[in-house]
């Protein structure tokens, strides 16, 4: 693993830390101001600082140091958590994100002087009110990660995080000079620190001994090591932490100074302080249990167990804690009671968070390759079905088993790529803060369904349109505070983001409680810009949809918020490119909701396979409303060219698919063929005339633009079971192209 790759991991972890800090601060603002929440924010910033130091990002490190110190004050209760402070912390976090961005892109560090002064002010200003004014502000934490970490990485290829460990272990032996042998009592007055690293303290390149070294460097001396909990070899679990220590720390060293050392690993190291305390009990971490063969005698000597696989739960009751009442002979201090007396009774009491985050990082390329292969598998399976059908082999049971397995494999593979939409939603608070600064509109955010998962590519490409919609909602949707008060609303607007799965698609809604779309203004503007004719009779929905028309902008003055050259038409195009659709629901005075319906994945979709002349085509199922064979009189002629289908009293235009795509259609009149009623973004509903419907099944989408060139009305191609290529109809494009705007649905 090269230093660049390690650096890449650092930035990925930065993103995670930033998201965690953002979530923590949001929780604080919402009223959850407990120790865990504040600690979480602190740890997130602290880990960025650690990495920044290791990789030599001076500006980032210096900035995080100030930020962290303020957070440390907050955590210690020296600074009270009040709304202005949370605002300051949020702004500090935004700048931290900019710092990380600058470090990653190699750009200039953001101007943070003002914020640093402000943060320092917040520390000093509140020092007088501190409940424990005796405690000095924590001094700068010694950086446990040395700057030479990346260089010391040769040799390890697979284990990303071991690398740091090696470098750190180098450190341990290179720099360590034990200040005094442990048998000696420390000079002068001292206090006692009891600690027991848990399983998590040894994971992910963490090494408890490094922290002990830091303690020793502060003048700490080991008084006692509790080995009573170490089991015999046959019940030993490499993943667990069995050792516990009591250290004597000189009185000159403050408790928070020492606690800072262990902050990095949080709950993974149990700590107690004081002569009347003792080493915390062992808590076995079931999730960490190594999966070495249950019968160790037959385990291959050279087959190291996978450290992170938690498939086999720890057989807790079968794990005797050996010699529980045999304290180590080196107990020089009578104040340290033997800890063995209480076996690990609290194993279940540990918060579940430790086992929850079992994950590995995978190169995206490998994943995409897997998805590709699954796509090929789907095709091969379809081919097999077709071939067997052709020779009348009756193996329907096996075939349906194969089909359901293929579908399961596909879904599992897709779920690997799936990510919670929270990664997009988590950026929204920042956008709203920026908007609040530039527009003066304060907006409250409500988020629902942020754990909804969808494909990583969709998530990545969703960010931009979503950002634009949010900017648009705040800029145009939500009124100014005084207008809101006049309308009897709360001065603070509310933006609601929600995501949910609905019949194989994901529905994302961005709704505001603003004024709603002013249809008069929109229509007037559209007429003025020549988007619609001056005498056009449009339904409310159609007027709303006009804002997606290219070149449309209603803001009297183009603001630099949403009027940055990217119109709503681009948003719609982005969504469409993702195979999604966008619709508007607007109620005057109540607000507007933009609803995005997105596919869960871009690679495989469900479609209706239809015949048109000698061609086979695929109509994506997402567009299909219904299919029908019209009866006598269901289709009426409109002029010489156009036919309209009467669907339960509503007339929708009929489009002959074959003639639009240049394929000879056998069915020349709707009565001879089948009509497929489709829903489109821009042109409402239409009925596609095809010869007949062959099947409805999954198809693998192959890009026509990549393999050939873009073709109007065609979204891509797929390979059929018999090996032939079938074109996938771009329903939106085709209908929009076939129908002049005045002839669309409500015309």
């Amino acid at each position, binding site marked *: 693993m090269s230093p660049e790759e390690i650096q890449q991991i650092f930035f990925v972890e930065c993103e995670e830390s930033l998201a965690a800090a953002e979530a923590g601060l949001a929780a604080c603002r919402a009223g959850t101001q407990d120790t865990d929440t504040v600690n979480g924010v602190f740890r997130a910033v602290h880990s960025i600082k650690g990495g920044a130091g290791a990789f030599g990002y001076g500006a980032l490190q210096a900035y995080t140091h100030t930020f962290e110190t303020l957070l440390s004050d907050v955590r210690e209760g020296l600074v009270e958590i009040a709304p202005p402070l949370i605002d300051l912390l949020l702004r500090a976090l935004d700048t931290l994100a900019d710092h990380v961005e600058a470090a990653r892109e190699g750009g200039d560090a953001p101007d943070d002087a003002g914020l640093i002064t402000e943060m320092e002010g917040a520390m000093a200003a509140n020092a007088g009110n501190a409940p424990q004014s005796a405690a000095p502000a924590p001094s700068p934490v010694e950086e446990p990660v040395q700057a030479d970490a990346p260089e010391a990485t040769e040799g390890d290829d697979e284990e990303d995080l071991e690398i740091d460990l090696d470098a750190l272990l180098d450190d341990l032996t290179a720099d*360590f000079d034990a200040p005094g042998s442990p048998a000696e009592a420390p000079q002068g007055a001292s206090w006692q620190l009891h600690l027991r690293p848990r399983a998590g303290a040894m994971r992910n390149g963490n090494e408890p001994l490094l922290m002990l070294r830091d303690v020793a460097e502060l003048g700490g001396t080991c008084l006692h*090591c509790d080995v009573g909990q170490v089991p015999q070899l046959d019940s*030993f679990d490499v993943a667990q932490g069995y*050792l516990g220590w009591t250290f004597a720390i000189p009185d000159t060293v403050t408790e928070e100074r020492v606690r800072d050392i262990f902050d990095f690993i949080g709950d993974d190291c149990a700590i107690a302080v004081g002569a009347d305390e003792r080493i915390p009990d062992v808590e076995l971490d079931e999730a960490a249990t190594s999966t070495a063969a249950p019968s160790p005698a037959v385990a291959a000597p050279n*087959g190291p167990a996978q450290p992170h696989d938690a498939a086999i739960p720890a057989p807790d009751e079968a794990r005797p804690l050996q010699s529980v009442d045999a304290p*180590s002979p080196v107990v020089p201090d009578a104040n340290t009671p033997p800890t063995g007396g209480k076996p690990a009774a609290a194993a279940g009491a540990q918060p579940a968070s430790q086992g929850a985050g079992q994950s590995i990082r995978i190169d995206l390329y490998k994943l995409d390759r897997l998805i590709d292969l699954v796509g090929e598998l789907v095709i091969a399976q379809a081919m097999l079905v077709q071939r067997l059908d052709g020779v009348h082999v009756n193996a329907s049971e096996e075939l349906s088993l194969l089909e359901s397995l293929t579908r399961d494999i596909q879904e599992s593979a897709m779920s690997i790529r799936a990510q919670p939409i929270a990664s997009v939603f988590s950026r929204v608070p920042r956008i709203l803060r920026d908007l609040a600064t530039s527009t003066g509109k304060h907006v409250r955010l409500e988020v629902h369904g942020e754990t909804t998962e969808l494909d990583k590519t969709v998530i990545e490409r969703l960010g931009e349109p979503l950002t634009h919609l949010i900017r648009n909602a705040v800029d145009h949707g939500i009124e100014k505070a005084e207008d809101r008060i006049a309308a009897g609303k709360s001065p603070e607007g509310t933006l609601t983001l929600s995501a949910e799965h609905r019949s194989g698609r994901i529905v994302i809604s961005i709704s505001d409680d603003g004024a709603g779309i002013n249809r008069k203004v929109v229509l007037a503007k559209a007429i003025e810009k020549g988007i619609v004719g001056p005498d056009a009779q449009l339904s409310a929905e159609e007027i709303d949809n006009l804002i997606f028309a290219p070149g449309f902008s209603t803001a009297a003055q183009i603001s630099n918020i949403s009027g940055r050259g990217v119109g709503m038409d681009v948003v719609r195009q982005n969504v469409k490119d993702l195979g999604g659709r966008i619709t508007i629901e607007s109620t005057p005075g109540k607000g507007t909701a933009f609803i995005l319906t997105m596919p869960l994945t871009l690679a495989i979709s469900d479609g209706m396979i239809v015949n048109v002349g000698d061609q086979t085509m695929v109509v994506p199922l997402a567009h299909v409303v219904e299919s029908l064979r019209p009866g006598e009189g269901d289709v009426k002629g409109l002029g010489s060219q156009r036919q309209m289908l009467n669907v339960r009293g509503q007339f929708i235009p009929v489009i002959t698919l074959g003639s639009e795509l240049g394929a000879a259609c056998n069915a020349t009149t709707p009565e001879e063929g089948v009509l497929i009623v489709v829903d489109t973004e821009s042109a409402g509903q239409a009925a596609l005339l095809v010869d007949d419907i062959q099947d409805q099944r999954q198809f693998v989408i192959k890009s026509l633009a990549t393999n050939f060139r873009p073709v109007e009305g065609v979204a891509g191609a797929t390979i059929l079971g018999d090996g032939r290529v079938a074109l996938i109809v771009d329903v939106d494009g085709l209908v929009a192209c076939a129908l002049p705007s005045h002839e669309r649905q409500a015309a």
Partner: protein
Amino acid sequence: MGTISLPVRCDRAAAEALWPELVGAVGNAPIEIDGSGVEHVGQAVLQLLVSARRSGGGARIEASPALLQAAALTGLQSELFEEGDA
């Protein structure tokens, strides 16, 4: 019974590899462990050595300076290296 050699880097991965080897070596006689080449050691291996000392016939560990240093830091010298203390 042969001697089990500790690798240069005694990190957690090393502990995972050593454990089955040590389990296979437990018997009435002390396990001979050669740690003279150890340059880095972490908690995972230290506690594994403690366990080996306490299992079966115990273990005799030949220590490198790095291993001794780590034992001194953690207060484990007598636990790991004193004869007749298994």
